């Protein structure tokens, strides 16, 4: 034991030095972002992180401009609504579909699985022109229906839940049926609680997916009051007044990134286990 400790000494030091160095490289931009949010334009590039000699020059003006001159609070609420609503729908419907695939034999199942695989191979951008036309015809342009409805089921999610729910014992389901539980009840009361880590992982995955989405919302959302954060922020970059107020853009970025980070810390335990469970086995 003592021998292995001795030989691992310098190697271990080197190992940790490398890990710390990489963490620094990855985390420094976050740190810089926080500093930049509270810096005045004059200090933005003059001091690398904070103007240490003049900490009194730190300011909340960037945040004030962001929330008063732009409808940023509105975009934040829109983002929260869109991401929460789409996550709730997609987690429920995808787990329902995954439950059927994992625990039932039914006619057309092989064909269905084949179709699901095929949809994952088609890059969705080829659908954009056709989708836009459909949305135009059913008058869903500039509404949230255009975002919530087409994304209501995720094929990837169905596969994840299928994989996870195969671990649900058939005897348990059979026992539930004997007690008079409906199939819907079995999904809700038996299967979902068992795959709770996957629910957590997929919740985070779909929440960040909608929260960070850009291409489709940029196409269908047209009124400024309906923008969500990525669209709102991306459109602010084009405005000349922010070329001289870069701190406002940084404040907007920080406020857009923080909520997802908080959700990650709330769900972190489930997350990594759930995320990689399918890939390693497959």
């Amino acid at each position, binding site marked *: 034991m003592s021998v292995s400790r001795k030989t*691992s000494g310098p190697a271990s030091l080197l190992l940790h030095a490398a890990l710390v160095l990489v*963490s620094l490289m990855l985390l420094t931009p976050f740190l810089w972002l926080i500093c930049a949010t509270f810096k005045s334009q004059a200090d933005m590039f003059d001091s*690398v992180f904070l103007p240490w000699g003049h900490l009194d020059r730190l300011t909340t003006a960037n945040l004030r401009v962001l929330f008063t001159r732009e409808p940023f609070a509105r975009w934040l609420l829109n983002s929260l609504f869109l991401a929460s609503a789409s996550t709730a729908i997609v987690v429920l419907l995808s787990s329902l579909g995954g439950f059927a695939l994992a625990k039932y034999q039914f006619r057309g199942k092989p064909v269905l699985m084949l179709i699901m695989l095929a949809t994952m*191979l088609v890059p969705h951008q080829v659908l954009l*022109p*056709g989708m836009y036309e459909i949305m135009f015809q059913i008058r869903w342009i500039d509404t949230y229906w255009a975002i919530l409805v087409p994304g209501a089921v995720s094929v990837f999610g169905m596969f994840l839940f299928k994989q996870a729910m195969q671990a649900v014992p058939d005897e348990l389901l059979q026992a539930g049926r004997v007690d008079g539980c409906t199939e819907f009840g079995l999904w809700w009361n038996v299967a979902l609680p068992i795959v709770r880590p996957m629910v957590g992982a997929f919740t985070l995955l779909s929440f960040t997916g909608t929260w960070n989405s850009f291409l489709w919302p940029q196409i269908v959302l047209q009124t400024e009051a309906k923008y969500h954060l990525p669209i709102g922020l991306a459109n602010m970059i084009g405005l000349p007044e922010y070329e001289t107020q870069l701190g406002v853009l940084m404040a907007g970025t920080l406020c857009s990134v923080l909520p997802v980070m908080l959700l990650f810390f709330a769900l972190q335990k489930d997350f990594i286990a759930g995320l990689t469970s399918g890939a390693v086995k*497959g």
Partner: protein
Amino acid sequence: MNTLWRLQHRLAPYLFVLPFVVLFLCFMLVPLCRSVVLALHKTSGPGAMQFVGLDNFEFVFQDDLFWRAVRNTLTYTVCFLSIQIPASLGLALLLNSRFVRGRDFFRYAFFSTHLVGNVFVAVLFMLLLAPRHGLINRVIGAVTPFGTELNWLGKPDLALPAVILAALWLSVGFGMIYFLAALQAVDQELYEAAQVDGAGAMSKFWHVTLPGIRPVLLFLLLVGMIGSFQLFELPYVLFQGPGPDNRALTVVMYLFQQGFETGDLGYASAIGWMLVLMVLAVSIAQIRLTRADRTD
């Protein structure tokens, strides 16, 4: 009551997959068919269309901008993956060492960047990459002889490297998580057997580790290639368009410009089908490789 209960038991699986089937028909199959029809038309916005046969495809083959976009996208894909995959694997190997303390902290630190959306990363890197005073140029000036004057966002030759830098920051940790899980699943007995046979560290890596993580490696390569082919947000927001001399123009950005800025949904569809061909090519290659694995 009893017949009703039996009925719901029999219908349940069909009801459970019904949402997917309905959405697949309405928002996958229908737009896919529309994209075929649209690709044969010249349009300006929805509604105004004129049949042109295969003209869109004929044009796309001689459209210099399209091929510039393809070249940029492929260059990005090759450069990005040839750095991301080894870097992610390297980090995972470091983190998988028995001696690491605080593994959870490092794991979360490495992964945290992946949660930041492309748009937000682009806005952040716009300032990090600023010439002279930007953080990245300051670091480069301090540790290399290149100085602090690199104009990442203005010089054509630096456009793709700037995108790759931001993309690496975003996704090295993501790959690391998968490699780490795969490394932890490699059978420890194989290492012990190799040890007995007198294998060195390099030999163990080549003959035990690499075959053990091959499925995950192939998975990350496929996901990485398909994702890279669809690159759009990072360069679009970073450069507010196709970048200097169109050097950051990607296939999807060109599709977006043609379809939704110029308004020619027909030509955009044709570009979309070219993208489908690109993605199908790598998917088929991947499936062949995985099959070869299974028969070995």
